[in-house]
């Protein structure tokens, strides 16, 4: 934990503070996706729906009920949890391609509801500004406060997921990824575990969404667009799926790459495509997998040298 905070602190002056804050929010989103995909092996194509729910519920809450940032956040997270809870009842029955595409379908429906059907409330494509006001020391116009708060949320998410995934519950969901039928034979209600994981993942995605609301203060259907799902999938894979450090590394790497490439080269997406092909064919473990193999080889070399000397 301290290491993560330290690394992020070191990155801040390099990337400028506002970018680091935004990237950290994205990292929270990547971690929420990693729980579902990396740990439980269910590839969803609709994680943006929960991010978008968090964004829109917190924005509308702040505009119509209370401008308190903490309450708006809680409302957004609750919104994400409720949506994930209801849809989860249906989608966790499925797996593989049907799971991925049903989530995509729900995401498309959500995008339609926000972008077109409830245009009077959400202002559709034009977007709306949130009504969040500073509360106590929590003033998001102050970059340092925002940075600290987002970092705290990131560490909180990391801590929660680290605890969860190393608990017996974590072992069960990882076993579901490997072989669900066997887990069932052991007497576990896999449906329940899958549902719980789906809801946790959705709530954490909504948490990332509420942070976008608080930090950026202006929301538009971009935050729920179905095609943006690929970004989070890529970030997870580049970092190495099924590893929380990988999720952080992947999230940061992807955002830095996107940010630097898109400012310097107008047509940058093919570089991302090439990188992904490399990941798929040569670097299955992503960044963390690469580091592990590298350190493994170095350790081996060292051991060889030692035996040679002796």
């Amino acid at each position, binding site marked *: 934990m301290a290491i993560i905070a330290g690394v992020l602190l070191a990155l801040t002056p390099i990337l400028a503070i506002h970018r680091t804050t935004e990237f950290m929010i994205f990292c929270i989103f990547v971690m929420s996706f990693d729980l579902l*995909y990396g740990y439980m092996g269910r*590839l969803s194509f609709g994680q943006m729906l929960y991010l978008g729910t968090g964004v829109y519920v917190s924005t509308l809450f702040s505009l119509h009920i209370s401008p308190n940032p903490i309450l708006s956040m809680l409302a957004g997270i609750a919104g994400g949890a409720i949506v994930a809870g209801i849809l989860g009842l*249906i989608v966790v*029955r*499925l*797996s*593989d*391609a*049907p799971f*991925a*595409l*049903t989530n*995509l*379908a*729900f995401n*498309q*429906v959500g*995008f*339609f509801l926000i*972008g*077109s*059907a409830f245009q009077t409330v959400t202002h559709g494509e034009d977007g709306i500004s949130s009504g969040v006001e500073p509360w106590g020391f929590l003033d998001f116009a102050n970059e340092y406060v925002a940075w600290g708060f987002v970092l705290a949320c990131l560490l909180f998410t990391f801590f929660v997921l680290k605890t969860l995934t190393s608990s017996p519950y974590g072992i069960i969901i990882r076993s579901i990824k490997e072989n*669900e039928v066997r887990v069932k034979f052991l007497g576990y209600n896999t449906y329940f575990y899958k549902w719980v994981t789906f809801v946790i993942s959705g709530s954490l995605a909504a948490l990332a969404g509420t942070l976008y609301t608080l930090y950026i203060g202006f929301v538009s259907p971009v935050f729920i667009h*179905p*095609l943006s799902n*690929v970004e989070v*999938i*890529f970030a997870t*894979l580049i970092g190495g799926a099924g590893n929380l450090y990988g999720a952080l590394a992947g999230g940061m790497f992807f955002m830095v790459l996107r940010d630097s490439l898109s400012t310097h080269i107008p*047509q940058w*997406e*093919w570089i*991302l*495509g*090439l*990188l*992904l*092909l490399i*990941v*798929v*064919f040569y670097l*299955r473990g992503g960044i963390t997998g690469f580091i592990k193999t590298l350190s493994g080889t170095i350790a081996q070399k060292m051991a060889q040298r030692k035996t040679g000397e002796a």
Partner: protein
Amino acid sequence: MIQTLLYGTTIGAILYFFSIGLSITFGTMKIINFAHSMVYTLGVYFFITMLPVLGGIFPAALAFAMVMVVPVAYVMERFVIRRLYGESLDYAMIATYAMLLIGTDVIKWIWGNTPLPVTDPLGTAVTVLDVSIPVYRVIIVASAVVLFIALNIFFKKHIIGKIIIAALDDNEGVRCLGLNVDRYFSIVFILGSILAVLGGVLYAPISAAEPYMGHDILLIAFAVVIVGGMGNLTGTFISGFVLGMVIAVTGRYYSQAADTMVFVVMAAVLIFRRSGSET
């Protein structure tokens, strides 16, 4: 209303052309092929480039575009898709998406970002029951029906078709007979790509050509493939037309909801037909 029905069948025919390739890759190789939309877009751009060169003859340029896309499809199949056989769903999906990203940028680099219009090659319309029907759209629908019959004959009578059908059913079993299934898959992959180009070129006069034209139809085609059953060729034909009709009818009453309705239908099918789900 007749206009709506005609529009629905036209869209349905285009969806059918596009979805066959997807359905076969889905059914045989268990790959969700995102790059299919790249081939589709590329074909349309080839067509646009060749049309003035070939003296504005629509069928000639269409045939040329279909031939041009063969090497592209072959390279994609040989160097990327073939290496993904038997891999997990996600890596295959990401690799094909990566190809889509690269391909789209290449298209933008060569032809630019601005949409290019394509004119209706016939421009004439017949009037039936006081409704004017563009002849061009009738031709699209007719060619879809002809193609459906031709494909059925191909898959039932021709040896390659029979092998593919058998492999759709039991890939391992066909391999055990000593047949090189990969080679036949690559033939069918190219065939699917050619048909996607056919669909794209026929649809271009109704819409316009732009680098991202494949994205929207790709998502809808996933729905077509899933509703029709993965690898089920007759199912793809029927669901193509049904979903085309869903788009047209919804679009008539509430145009923004047209695409969304398709996904609602797909979600309903996935939930109620439990074949895709776990036991």
